[in-house]
């Protein structure tokens, strides 16, 4: 099939004649001009180059992609969550359950997006633990990367809190009773426990504001914290570099490793 006329390159111009700018070249030029205009004022490309094109040790493998996989699980949760919030209603008088049923039964692709969010939550927890196991067994948490590990643990706890608060939102029997039990487990901490429970429920009993409280914690408080901490986590990963796999021997000077035959 012949190329459309628009995409076909014109014949080279006669000697001494300026070639007319082809539309594709013109579009490329325009795009580059915009990018240059922004970059001249922000110097973003420097930072991007620093982030994307870094040296990595020899011998890294697919296990090193688990962190990125977790990041993408988080992004997937964020995007699907934002759009679920367009249809969800945190109303204790049956409105929450009805709005979830509406999402599943009536909204175009609703069941799919809800399913992505629901199953994605479990996927994210699994990926976090795999990522954590990789870091642990490869010894990648050691100096100077201890702070990266600590932030990672905080992120794990926040993700579990996301799971706990998100579980209530469909507001069916299972989520209601699971939340009652979950809050009461928090209550069993000595001294502080009763106050933690009151904070979570917004009062001494599961009441009118408990659901909206969980909803606000689930979609505003924790995601904001997590996004900030993920940013810091990634900064540290980039700044400190990736650790080499433990089976890779450090390359020592030849004089030391030379075998002397006796």
């Amino acid at each position, binding site marked *: 099939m012949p190329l459309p006329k628009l995409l076909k390159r014109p014949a080279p111009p006669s000697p001494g004649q300026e070639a007319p700018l082809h539309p594709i070249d013109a579009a490329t030029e325009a795009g580059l001009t915009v990018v240059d205009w922004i970059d001249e004022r922000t110097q973003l490309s420097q930072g991007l180059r620093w982030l994307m094109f870094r040296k990595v040790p020899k011998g890294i493998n697919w296990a090193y992609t688990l962190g990125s996989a977790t990041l993408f699980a988080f992004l997937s949760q964020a995007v699907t969550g934002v759009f679920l919030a367009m249809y969800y209603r945190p109303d204790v008088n049956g409105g929450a359950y009805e709005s979830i049923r509406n999402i599943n039964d009536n909204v175009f692709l609703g069941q799919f997006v809800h399913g992505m969010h629901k199953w994605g939550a479990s996927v994210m927890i699994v990926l976090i633990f795999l990522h954590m196991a990789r870091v642990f067994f490869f010894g990648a948490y050691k100096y100077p990367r201890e702070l990266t590990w600590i932030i990672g643990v905080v992120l794990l706890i926040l993700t579990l809190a996301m799971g706990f608060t998100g579980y209530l939102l469909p507001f069916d029997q299972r989520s209601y009773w699971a939340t009652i039990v979950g809050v009461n487990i928090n209550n069993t901490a000595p001294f502080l426990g009763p106050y933690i429970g009151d904070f979570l429920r917004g009062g001494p*009993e599961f*009441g009118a504001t408990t659901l909206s409280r969980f909803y606000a914690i689930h979609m505003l408080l924790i995601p904001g914290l997590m996004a900030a901490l993920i940013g810091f986590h990634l900064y540290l990963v980039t700044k400190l570099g990736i650790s080499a796999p433990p089976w890779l021997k450090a390359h020592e000077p030849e004089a030391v490793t030379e075998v002397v035959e006796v």
Partner: protein
Amino acid sequence: MPADRHKQSSKYTADRGMPGAFEGETVTRRRFMEAVTHGAGGIAAAAFTLPALGFALGPIFKREPFSWQIIGKPDDFTELNYVTKVITIVQGVGEAGKSIAYVRKRDPAIDTEPHDQFNKFIALSSRCAHLGCPVRYVEAAEEFICPCHGGVYNFRGEVAGGPPVRPLDRFYTLERNGYIYLGPRYSVNSELQRFAPRDPGEPLDGIGQYLYPSRFDTSKLPPTNNLPLPPTVPGTGS
């Protein structure tokens, strides 16, 4: 560095070569301006952070008033069996605010705890003292059984087996105007002594009552001056 460097250094920022120094600016002035700027920023941040924090934490210190509700007439209840009554714990939240009380008449032969006007009728809360699942009364076994983790309570609501840390909670009951009124919840220890209401999972024996403080009002006896009027019987006027 000399031992007493304050004496040796000049009081002007320009002499010390501090960044942004200008002629005649003293270190004291710069420190004062710094403190004012940070202070103003701190006050501005506190102006929205503190109210928001109080807004979020306020419910910890708040206690919802519990109104008395009518659950039946004295003849509805016997000493030998529990009657299941659906009660309202939180107003205005529909099914989520409902709970169940198991009610029977006090039987002096088995109910050995001190007798007063609030326990002529025994009303047990269905909320399991382990983690809050709803227990169900099994008449054949004369026991309360929790579906979640296998807690078992005997006829008086005392722990007969499983993980619960204290007996089932109870409600104050009152006989007035020919009706039985159900009042606030209270918790009991293994000797069925009354305590301010605690959440499930919080033991009350030994040091338990100190490890798990109750909320701020610990009034043991509920006010009885706001009883709702009994329903009017159709055909009797008024």
